[in-house]
C-alpha cells in the first residue's frame, strides 16, 4: 500500500513538473506583452496560451486569438523580430500617465443600471473627463484629464465599492473615441 501511495505521489509530482515545461522543440514565448494588442500579459485576465508551429504563443485575451488566427505568419514574424515600434507601444502602457485612456474589464456588468452606476461613479472623479461603458465587452473606458492620474489600486477600490469586480485593466495607445467606436462595432 505504501509503495502504491509513493508511486501515486511521484507520478503527480512528475505531471506537475511536466505542466511547467514546454514539449521538446517548442520555443518559449519571448515577450512580456501580447503580440496582437501590445497589452501587458495578465492585464486582461489569465493569458491565452497555445502552441503554433513549435512556437509558444501567449495572448492577452480570447479576442486576440481571433486576430492571431486570421494572420498567424504576421504575428510569428513580430515575435521573432519585435520591432522598435512594438516595444515603444509597450513602454507607453504605463499606468497613471497624463491624458491616458484607461480600459477596465469588469465582472458583473450585465444591465443598464449596472452601467449607469459605474458610469456615474467614475464621472464624479476629478481625474476623469469622459466615461464610456460597453456591456457586450464588459468594458469601462475612461479618458483621464491632462496631467491627472488614476492609480490602479484606487480604480480597483472604486469598482469594488460600486458593487463589481475588476478583472483587468489596460492602457491602450489608441484614442478614446477610436476605442469607443471599435467597442461599439464589435458589440454589433
Amino acid at each position, binding site marked *: 500500500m505504501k509503495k502504491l501511495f509513493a508511486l501515486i505521489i511521484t507520478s503527480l509530482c512528475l505531471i506537475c513538473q511536466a505542466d511547467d515545461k514546454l514539449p521538446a522543440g517548442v520555443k518559449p514565448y519571448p515577450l512580456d506583452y501580447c503580440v496582437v494588442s501590445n497589452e501587458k500579459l495578465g492585464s486582461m485576465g489569465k493569458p491565452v496560451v497555445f502552441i503554433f508551429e513549435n512556437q509558444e504563443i501567449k495572448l492577452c485575451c480570447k479576442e486576440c486569438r481571433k486576430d492571431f488566427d486570421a494572420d498567424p505568419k504576421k504575428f510569428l514574424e513580430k515575435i521573432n523580430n519585435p520591432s522598435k515600434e512594438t516595444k515603444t507601444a509597450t513602454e507607453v502602457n504605463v499606468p497613471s500617465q497624463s491624458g491616458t485612456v484607461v480600459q477596465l474589464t469588469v465582472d458583473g456588468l450585465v*444591465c443598464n443600471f449596472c452601467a449607469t452606476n459605474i458610469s456615474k*461613479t467614475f464621472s464624479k472623479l476629478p481625474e476623469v473627463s469622459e466615461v464610456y461603458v460597453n456591456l*457586450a465587452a*464588459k468594458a469601462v473606458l475612461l479618458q483621464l484629464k491632462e496631467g491627472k492620474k488614476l492609480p490602479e489600486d484606487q480604480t480597483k477600490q472604486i469598482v469594488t465599492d*460600486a458593487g463589481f469586480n475588476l478583472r483587468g485593466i489596460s492602457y491602450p495607445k489608441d484614442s478614446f473615441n477610436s476605442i469607443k467606436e471599435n467597442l461599439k462595432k464589435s458589440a454589433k
Partner: protein
Amino acid sequence: MVSAPGINFLKAEYGHTFSYTEIGRSFTGFRSVGFGGYSFNTGEGKSIEAEVAIVNQLLKRWNTEDSQANIVIGGGIGRGRTGGREGWAGTASVLADWENRRWHIMLQEQAVFVPSASRLVSTLMGGWAPYLAEYDEWAPWIYYTVQHENGAGVGFVHGPSLVLMHKDLLLELRVMHSSHGYHAEAGIRSLF
C-alpha cells in the same frame, strides 16, 4: 433599490388599485444601503395608506464574467391607516435575483404591516431580453410576474409586462390578472 454610493433613485408604480412611490439614496461606507420613504394605498376590499422609511441592505452579490446574483434585505417603519384606524406600519423583505444580459429571475418575499390589514406578498418574476442592446440604446425586456398576497383577500395576481431600459431610466407597463379581473399598471425607475 440598491445602487452605487452617492446615487439617488426614484421608484414609482401606479395601478388601478394602488400607487407606490419611493425615493432614496445609496451611501458610501454602507455601499449597499439605500433608504427613502414610500406611500401606497390599495382598494382590494380595504383602503390602506402608509408612509414608511425604508432601509435596503445588499447582503451578498456574486459577480461573474457574464452574470450577477444578489441577495437584498429591506426593512421599513412608519405610520399607516386602514379605513379609520391609524397606527404603526412597517415592512420587511428579502429579495434574491440572478441576471445575465438575456435572462433575469427574481424572487421576493415582503411582509407589510399595517393596522388591521397586514399581509405577506410573494413575488416571482422572470424576464427575457429579445435582443441585446447597449446601455445607451433602448433595451426591451419581456417579463412575467406571479404574485401572491396572503392576508389582503387578493390571492394570486399574474401577468406579462414590457420593460424598456435606457441609460438611467426604466419604464414598465404591466397587464395583471387577479380575481377582480384585468388591470393595467405602469412603473418607472430612475437613477440620478
